[in-house]
């Protein structure tokens, strides 16, 4: 077992011991736990995040996640919530991209007033370990987000979120340092159906991929000195993620993100959702990597 895994196990044991000093308290603590499971099947166009269109790889991906969380009101307007999440990602056609991610989450919410229309400010932090199949991508991810949300009518609510993500991988190619801002809105247009959408902008590092035939030209100056100079200044290596000789490389980029989702409450505890997401990545020298995905997910709260 690797050190991070030992550390996670140890953290879970210590936290469990600290939060549940005796059997009765543990039972009470567990009663207040909300456990949610989600399964998602996606079809992703340009999963490989490749700039040269003829070599882009599309694929089906699958995600399973299990989340346990609990909230505790600290003061009349302050709420603390803590939880842990495990996510299993699988892309059968490109199994080197598979990973398991798990870790704890802690957040604090401040509600400005009483009632459903009072605005809520929320600070969230998360730490997770990414046990990627590709050794170079393994490492710790830290996240922090600040969100202000408000309900405007009984059926409409909206929010703005600012998110920071850092991933510290074994290889610098997979290191990420990102910041994004987004707005989102949710409309319950019937007793069962909800339409939601979000739009945002992300700035920071992203990992892209290229077939060696293209990459060789890029770093050799075949696409000009600007491309060659920039790509040679960034970390890259042959990792064969999307085929023999495929290169993974890290670039600084701006990403336009948006998504649209239609959700149906199957029961009080289960929701089915169809989501379209788009990420239009443009790196610092103007190279584009558009990615689109269509996903169907089922979320169940136990």
């Amino acid at each position, binding site marked *: 077992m690797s050190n991070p895994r030992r550390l996670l196990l140890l953290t879970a044991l210590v936290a469990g011991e600290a939060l549940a000093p005796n059997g009765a308290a543990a039972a009470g603590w567990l009663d207040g736990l909300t456990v949610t499971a*989600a399964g998602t099947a996606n079809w992703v166009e340009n999963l490989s995040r490749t700039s040269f269109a003829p070599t882009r790889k599309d694929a089906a991906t699958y995600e399973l996640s299990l989340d346990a969380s609990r909230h505790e*009101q600290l003061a009349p307007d302050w709420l603390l919530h803590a939880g842990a999440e495990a996510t299993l990602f699988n892309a059968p056609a490109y199994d080197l991209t598979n990973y398991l991610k798990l870790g704890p989450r802690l957040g604090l*919410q401040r509600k400005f007033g*009483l009632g459903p229309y009072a605005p809520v400010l929320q600070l*969230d932090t998360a730490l997770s370990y990414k046990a990627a199949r590709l050794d170079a991508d393994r490492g710790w991810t830290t996240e922090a987000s600040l969100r202000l949300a408000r309900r405007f009518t*009984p059926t409409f609510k909206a929010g703005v979120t600012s998110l920071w993500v850092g991933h510290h991988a074994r290889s610098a190619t997979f290191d990420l340092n990102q910041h994004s801002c987004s707005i989102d809105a949710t409309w319950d247009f019937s007793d069962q159906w909800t339409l939601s959408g979000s739009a945002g902008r992300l700035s920071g590092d992203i990992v892209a991929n290229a077939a060696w035939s293209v990459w060789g030209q890029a770093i050799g100056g075949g696409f000009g000195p600007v491309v060659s100079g920039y790509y040679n200044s960034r970390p890259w290596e042959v990792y064969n993620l999307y085929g023999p000789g495929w290169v993974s490389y890290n670039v600084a980029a701006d990403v336009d993100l948006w998504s649209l989702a239609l959700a149906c409450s199957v029961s009080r505890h*289960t929701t089915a959702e169809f989501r379209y997401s788009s990420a239009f990545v443009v790196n610092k020298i103007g190279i584009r990597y558009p990615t689109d995905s269509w996903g169907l997910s089922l979320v169940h*709260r136990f």
Partner: protein
Amino acid sequence: MRLRLLIALLVLPAATAVLAAPAGLTVTVKGAKGEPVADAVISLVPLDGASIPPPAAAGEIAQQDQEFTSYVTVVQAGARVVFPNRDTVQHHVYSLSKAKKFELPLYKPGQAESFVFDVAGLVSLGCNIHEWMAAYLVVVPTPYFAKTGAEGTASVAAPGGRYRLELWHPRLAASVTAEFTLAAGEAARREFTLTLKADKRPRRGGPAKSGGYR
């Protein structure tokens, strides 16, 4: 003379018994399309100065499965209402209504605070953590009240006399009132057809990953 006295002695208890005999009013409430309307509150407020007995029963509005157990509760002014948290999570029950303002923050599972509601009026209840939780407590100045069930009917037992009938529903723009006389021993019937507004409660959302204010 003796015969008259004898007749009077025989008739008086019978007349008294008739006057004191409880009467009843059955109200049927329908929507604009003729559908039965549940949760409509009917109260009969005496107009002829009859003395009103104090509240006989306490009320209860529990929190369970992140909902209030009853959407509409009716009590007589002066009654005590208990708010037991039978859930596994905390709640923050509140009311901003003029008839009774209160808050139960940091309200843990197992707690059961209570309040006396001595002013007649409408008390709108919510939970400041779970935004879809909403309930109404209707405090009426009379012991003669009832709430319609799923079939849209409610029955109130009251002594004969003059009353102001008040009909209230969460989706009604304003209460409906009508004055009428209930004859002793009478089993009266009334029917109301209401035009109801849209339900303004936020919908309980599907599963979410994090707990907290929603």
